[in-house]
């Protein structure tokens, strides 16, 4: 990928935050034999394929609490990225309590949607191919739960669980053009 101009269209929409649900799949449910394609713009342009009878799980996110942060890691000549997805779930349902336990030590992939309609991925990154001539997608730097803080709060306080997932990567969270598989009963 070569350097190019980085311009901004005058008056373009630029709302912050995330919209819609968060989607998570354990890394063990991903079909790693099918590596997604990285297009010329550095986006994941084909579907993340799952094993038979597996699906992404949707997690509700309180609007206004979801965000993507990234920061530069490493020292000069060894820089990379640490990317984090953060969101808040509003209550103490059995489902979120179960999810919080299961995800504590579980590597996986998360996909979120921004208000510009771009899906962003945590847990899939790019690396160079064996010849060092092209970028290929890699499942070898999955996302892990970094922090899960929950509170019932006092009366009138905010209540719920704030979760942060983190992954190391060579890039910021990649843009994903594929579908998010929600179907455990695929076409026979």
């Amino acid at each position: 990928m070569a350097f190019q101009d980085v311009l901004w269209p005058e008056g373009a929409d630029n709302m912050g935050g995330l919209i819609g649900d968060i989607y998570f799949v354990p890394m063990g449910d991903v079909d790693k034999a099918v590596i997604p394609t990285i297009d010329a713009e550095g986006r994941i342009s084909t579907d993340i394929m799952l094993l038979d009878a597996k699906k992404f799980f949707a997690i509700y996110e309180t609007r206004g609490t979801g965000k993507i942060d990234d920061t530069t890691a490493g020292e000069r000549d060894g820089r990379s990225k640490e990317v984090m997805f953060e969101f808040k779930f509003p209550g103490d349902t059995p489902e979120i309590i179960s999810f919080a336990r299961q995800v504590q030590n579980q590597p996986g992939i998360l996909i979120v949607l921004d208000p510009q309609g771009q899906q962003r991925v945590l847990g899939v990154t790019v690396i160079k191919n064996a010849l060092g001539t092209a970028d290929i997608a890699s499942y070898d730097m999955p996302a892990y739960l970094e922090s899960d803080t929950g509170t019932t709060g006092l009366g009138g306080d905010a209540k719920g669980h704030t979760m942060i997932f983190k992954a190391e990567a060579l890039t910021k969270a990649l843009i994903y053009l594929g579908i998010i598989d929600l179907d455990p009963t695929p076409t026979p």
Partner: protein
Amino acid sequence: MEKTVNKLPDEVAKKYEVLKGRPFKFSYRNFGRIDLNNTTLKQVEALIKHGVQHIVRKQAKG
């Protein structure tokens, strides 16, 4: 696990099919959650136009 049997609506199935092993239920960018069991031909053609890759035109038999 859900026990539903996936089947495209007749008007869609006349022209398109879902690739073997690929999902009928999925989420896709601005479209949100999709269930191909309950879609119209117009919706399916919009999905294909906007990049969904696992719904394909049926091959003519011959």
